[in-house]
């Protein structure tokens, strides 16, 4: 136990976990140090347990923790006192690059980033292994789920799309106004009520369906569900229509594209306060650059523009993939954002126009 240096090990584990996508801050590092000072990490096993409780916030993170922890040097030292120096130098070089510069040089770290160490412990001599490829461990989280935008952040973002209008029933007790009125009059007459506020924003969602959008149906479905049921928008103020590739003269009411409705009729319900959000990859998924598509999109956007200027485009493909495809050109016609947290938040900023004054005046 004499060679066991928990503080050094914490820093190593911290850096390694952060590289693996754990969301940890300096506060967590300090907390771990404090825990060790308090006697919660006397042995490597105890320390591992402590860090797991402190730093892993889901069962899946806990399972990711174990291989990372086992790859740290201290666990190997007591079991493998002598190691082939040639084996060590290679991965060490790799580690040196990853570690932050302020970290103090420590006893020769026998860094291994792979998880395969475990099986090798049973072997008498270390065989020559294939060179380390970082891609192996790098992608664990990506393989589990490609999730550029979570449901939770969709709900958050939708909240910004609001146009509060006090036109509901007159049933909200305004405590402050009541007290103010009473103190002004010197006696109490009646409570002051104000109207219930409602979100008057009108959202028109146009979603590209099928074809290259197939992989993103999950996200578009989440987008519709959160807008309809978990935003502050009134469900009857959310119109969802589907199209394939380009919103043409008619769009569809259902996601199987069987109930067509003329775009003209859809737009008839719109005014200059309507927010239009189009979700489509605009050809970026397959990298096509078709003149026909661009022309059709342009004429459609032109039509939409006659009704409202609150139009934004969400593209599920990352921005670097737009280049060279029709998306690049369409992005010049309409504010287009890639579908992640920032993109959605920006798109919603566009479609809500400028923020409105709050209507909080007590009615008398």
């Amino acid at each position, binding site marked *: 136990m004499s060679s066991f240096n928990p503080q050094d090990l914490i820093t190593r584990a911290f850096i390694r976990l952060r590289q693996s996508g754990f969301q940890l801050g300096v506060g967590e590092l300090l*907390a771990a140090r404090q*825990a060790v000072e308090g006697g919660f990490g006397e042995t490597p096993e105890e320390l591992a347990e402590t860090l797991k409780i*402190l730093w892993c916030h889901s069962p899946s993170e806990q399972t990711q923790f174990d291989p990372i922890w086992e790859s740290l040097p201290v666990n190997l030292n007591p079991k493998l006192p002598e190691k082939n120096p040639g084996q060590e130098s290679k991965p060490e070089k790799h580690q040196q690059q990853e570690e932050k510069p302020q970290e103090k040089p420590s006893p020769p770290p026998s860094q291994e980033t792979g998880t395969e160490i475990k099986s090798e412990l049973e072997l008498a001599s270390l065989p020559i292994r294939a060179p380390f490829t970082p891609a192996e461990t790098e992608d664990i989280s990506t393989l589990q789920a490609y999730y550029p935008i979570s449901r939770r952040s969709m709900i958050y973002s939708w909240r910004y799309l609001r146009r509060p209008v006090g036109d509901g029933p007159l049933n909200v007790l305004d405590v402050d106004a009541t007290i103010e009125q009473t103190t002004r009059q010197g006696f109490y007459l009646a409570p002051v009520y104000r109207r219930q506020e409602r979100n008057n924003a009108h959202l028109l969602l146009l979603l590209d369906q099928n074809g290259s959008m197939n992989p993103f149906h999950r996200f578009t479905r989440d987008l519709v569900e959160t807008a309809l049921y978990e935003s502050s928008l009134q469900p009857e103020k959310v119109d969802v229509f589907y199209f394939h590739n380009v919103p043409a003269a008619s769009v569809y009411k259902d996601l199987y594209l069987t109930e067509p409705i003329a775009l003209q009729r859809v737009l008839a319900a719109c005014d200059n306060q309507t927010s239009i959000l189009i979700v489509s990859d605009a050809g970026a998924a397959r990298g096509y650059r078709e003149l026909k598509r661009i022309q059709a999109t342009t004429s459609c956007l032109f039509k939409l523009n006659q009704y409202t200027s609150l139009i934004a485009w969400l593209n599920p493909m990352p921005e670097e993939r737009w280049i060279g495809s029709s998306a690049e050109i369409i992005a010049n016609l309409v504010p287009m954002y890639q579908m992640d947290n920032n993109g959605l938040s920006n798109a919603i900023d566009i479609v809500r126009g400028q923020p409105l004054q709050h209507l909080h005046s007590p009615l008398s």
Partner: protein
Amino acid sequence: MATVSNRLKFTGDFNAQPENPHKHSPTHPEPYIISPELKKAVNLAIYLRRPLLLEGDAGCGKTRLASAVAYELGLPLYRWDVRSTTRALDGLYEYDAILRLHDVQTQKVAPLPIDESQTDEDEDEERLNHNPANPKHYRKFGALGKAFKLKDCPAVVLIDEIDKADLDFPNDLLTVLDEPWEFKIKETGETIRANHKPIVIITSNKEKGNLPAPFLRRCLYYYVDFPNEKKRLQEIVEKHYQVREETPPPSALVENAVERFLAVWNEGGLFKKPGTSEFLDWLKALHTFEPKPYNAAQLKKDKLLPYRELLFKLQQDWKKYAKTS
């Protein structure tokens, strides 16, 4: 490390209650069988004074842990049940402006001079005579507020089912459960600073997806597993009856019941797995519902589980075990 000896430590032994517990401490011992890992998590949370987030299936004993901790350490327990409309402020304090207005109207007396000696002590007491001239009479502290006000010991605060609340709730909570551990009451202009940082235990069912990352980062996390082991379940039964001071069911019945129950539990295919509390209810029914306890050998032979209604709460599960007969 000199502080190790005199700091609070949770051992999981309900007989270890100190001589004179706080008056808000639970009065009944809590039969809680704690695993060494969970015990460590609790002690770590007590030591670092970070909130302990417990997740796990319903009925694994997440909520009970807080009272077990509070009872053993003799600390007051303040429970805050979160609802869909709960705001973070509700846990700190409520201010009854309408009552104050009402008092001004009804008392019709010249404002009494503020009696400072009366205002600062015993904040939680129900006050009969509110003085409208003193805004402090109209604030009422919530679970966290009470914990912050304690003078001589920390409190255990249970925030139950945090995921029921609004999206912003965990984030709002964070600003209070962090340095400098204080909040302001805008109506009275007071700043309430925690004398002792409370021990916060938070439970979550993961009903509405994940909690925000900044919140998670602050918390200690522990996933409470179902005690899926014959020995542990038997231990739970034993302790449970010991605390209640009731005669436990005959050991053969307990053993067979545990076996049957775990078989059902581990078989899979259930839409909603029964928890520990359901098991205890079921065992109680087996033991005392009929004048004579259920025959242990009979239970082992039975193809149809007796008192199924205590274990299965969904139609599909119910049907599944009706069919196997």
